[in-house]
């Protein structure tokens, strides 16, 4: 593992803009009067509601239980009253069910999960149950339930645990600060995850643009036999498949999962959540979020409770100096544009990013001049230009033949296209249409 990381083919180098917030220590957000907790924060089934309007809850109490195996429970971010169960704007612009908690100001813990300080003596199954009970999801952005990744089906042997600390998205520094300030917890989380998987080692992959975080992690990594791997700075280095390739040299087959090449990847923030859930008995009710962008008065990194409205997070950062063109959840390459400040922080909200008007222009899409730049940067080695034309002409069969399904939607092709073609958008559409056709056939 200590040998040099492999370079994946393709990738782009956008201006990382991380300096805005990289040196800002994590600040704890003050308690709010109200939190609006979006119900469905994970990939998979939505959780089942357990509370009703008027209920009194304590911090960490269950608001909803897992709605199946690929689902996680949801906990109260603070103590108070369930003051409404209604809809709030969701990250995709559609209203989604949410639970409103009016805080009582006490922030008192309820019947918390039992701390497991003696975790090395606990059975892996119990530790995994704890990860599930704490409602931990992939906090890098995907929101995939963490316990599911820790449950490989019979016959799938796992030999490598990778913690994703690449943070290759421009602007985001939440994982960077976390690794720097909570290195022990990152490593501890890695050790607990390794024990669940029956492994005795783990690798933390970090892009080389965070040398301080790499140095800090290396200081504490030895304690649990964890190694730290610096990675070349190349977007999308933090994409799961590219990360696995960089560290192990294995290619995850198209349409397959990391476990098919004997790997499990967890985000570093998820690892810290695991450590806190096991050692302290804390469920997943807060996270580190970068609030940044040129229009932001005081960009930085905050520890925010889930259910914090974006408007409140922006207030913590001092508001804005100029009207931004875009408000994003996540980074500028893969983040989702928002049109409401009432959307609330979820377990996978790594960043709240304002994009200034000089960074986005209204492009008109021009004809493809077949320059091949998209082909050159595609980390999945597919032909973005051709696939996009196939989708435009509604030739979804052709798009499928050209492996559109392998696309990881990293946006590198759109980023470099001199004709400003909406390539990534075409692929998303193509994938949706192909999946719809598949469902029809069934």
């Amino acid at each position: 593992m200590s040998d040099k990381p492999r370079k994946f083919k393709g990738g782009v180098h956008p201006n990382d803009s991380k300096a805005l917030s990289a040196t800002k220590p994590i600040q704890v957000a003050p308690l709010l009067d109200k939190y609006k907790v979006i119900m469905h924060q994970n990939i998979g089934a939505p959780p089942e509601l357990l509370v009703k309007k008027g209920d009194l809850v304590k911090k960490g109490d269950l608001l909803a239980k897992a709605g199946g195996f690929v689902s996680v429970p949801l906990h109260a971010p603070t103590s108070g009253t369930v003051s409404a169960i209604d809809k709030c704007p969701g990250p995709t612009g559609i209203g989604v069910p949410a639970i409103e908690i009016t805080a009582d100001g006490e922030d008192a813990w309820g019947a918390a999960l039992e701390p497991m300080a003696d975790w090395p003596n606990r059975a892996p199954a119990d530790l995994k149950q704890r990860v599930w009970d704490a409602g931990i999801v992939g906090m890098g952005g995907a929101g995939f339930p963490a316990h599911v990744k820790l449950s490989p089906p019979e016959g799938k042997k796992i030999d490598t645990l990778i913690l994703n600390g690449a943070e290759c998205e421009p602007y985001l520094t939440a994982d960077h600060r976390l690794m720097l300030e909570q290195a022990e917890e990152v490593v501890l989380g890695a050790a607990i995850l390794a024990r669940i998987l029956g492994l005795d080692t783990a690798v933390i992959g970090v892009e080389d643009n965070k040398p301080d975080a790499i140095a800090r992690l290396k200081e504490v990594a030895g304690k649990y036999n964890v190694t730290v791997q610096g990675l070349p700075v190349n977007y999308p280095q933090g994409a799961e498949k590219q990360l696995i390739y960089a560290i192990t040299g294995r290619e995850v087959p198209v349409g397959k999962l990391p476990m098919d090449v004997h790997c499990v990847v967890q985000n570093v923030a998820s690892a810290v959540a695991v450590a806190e859930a096991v050692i302290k008995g804390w469920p997943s009710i807060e996270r580190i979020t970068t609030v940044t962008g040129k229009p932001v008065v005081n960009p930085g990194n905050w520890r925010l409770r889930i259910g914090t409205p974006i408007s409140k997070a922006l207030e913590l950062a001092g508001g804005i100096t100029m009207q931004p063109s875009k408000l994003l959840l996540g980074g500028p390459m893969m983040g989702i544009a928002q049109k409401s400040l009432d959307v609330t922080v979820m377990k996978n909200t790594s960043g709240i990013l304002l994009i200034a008007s000089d960074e986005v222009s209204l492009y008109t899409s021009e004809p493809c001049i077949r320059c091949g730049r998209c082909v050159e940067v595609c980390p999945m080695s597919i032909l973005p230009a051709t696939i996009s034309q196939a989708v435009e002409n509604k030739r979804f069969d052709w798009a499928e033949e050209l492996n559109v399904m392998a696309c990881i939607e990293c946006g590198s092709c759109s980023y470099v296209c001199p004709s400003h073609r909406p390539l990534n958008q075409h692929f998303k559409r193509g994938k949706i249409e192909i999946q719809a056709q598949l469902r029809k056939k069934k």
Partner: protein
Amino acid sequence: MSETETTPTILLPDPARLMVSNSPHIRDRQSIKKIMFTVVASLLPACLAGIWFFGIAALEVLLLCTVSCVAIEEGWNKLTKRASTWQDGSAIITGILLGMNLNAGVPWWVCILGGVLAIILGKQLYGGLGYNPFNPALVARVGLLIGLPEIMTTWNTPQAGKMVVDAVTAATPLGMAPGTETLGNLFAGNVGGCLGETSAIALLIGGVALIAFKLIKWQVPLAYIGSVFVVTGIAHLISPETTHSPVFHVLSGGLLLGAFFMATDMVTSPMTIKGSWIFGLGCGIMTSAIRLWGSYPEGVSFSILFMNALTPLIDRISISKPFGYVAPVKGDAK
């Protein structure tokens, strides 16, 4: 309310003015316009060399070709009620390349006729920029060569630095007996030929700049020039008296102009690296074959057009395997 006055108001974004669109939300600063004007700049050394050796006549041909290509493109856009497109720079490049592919002494109307062939027949009839299968400047050159063989195979004698309009005719070095022209003259461009193709050094400067700016794939000129060198080298070894040396072949005729600036045209050449190798090799072998055994002394234009026609096929066979590709298991259909 003195308290509110002292508390600085915190401004928040106005949601009504937030744009919503798909990711990615940032772009690099490259654009068609930038690409095209960099190409124009890289053509300048060879154009200046042409003017130096062939005088004001060369400048007139270059200007007339460029202006007519732009005017014809805009006229066509008006006629077909399309938006103006000359600003993207592609018609300017076509015009300059067309001029570079003509003799400095051609009559004025040849330039305009060439412009019509390039822009209308070569580009707009297919739908405009991005949709043309053949390099527009070469469509014009070959069209003129077939229609006006006499005008198109007469060349001015270079008169370095004299800036005179002089119509003494010379043969292209490729048409002479081997050993008549010195390599030094070929390298500098002090030989008869189309006005933009003679100076090897000027073409190399522009070509290397394009490679450095990553606007052309270096595989194309390397494969093209390399294969011409190898094929003509073998022929020269077999019969040194009747054939030119491989260095002579590389430096003469339109090879360097074609290899760096015409075969590399993005629209009409393959998108993949593997495809670029195939394309360059094909051009080189065709050019060598025409030069050694064909009835024309020059084969660059025909070769590139021929390979342009094959580009869709090359693209199809050179598709790379996606990351994590798994070959379908035979008999898996059941």
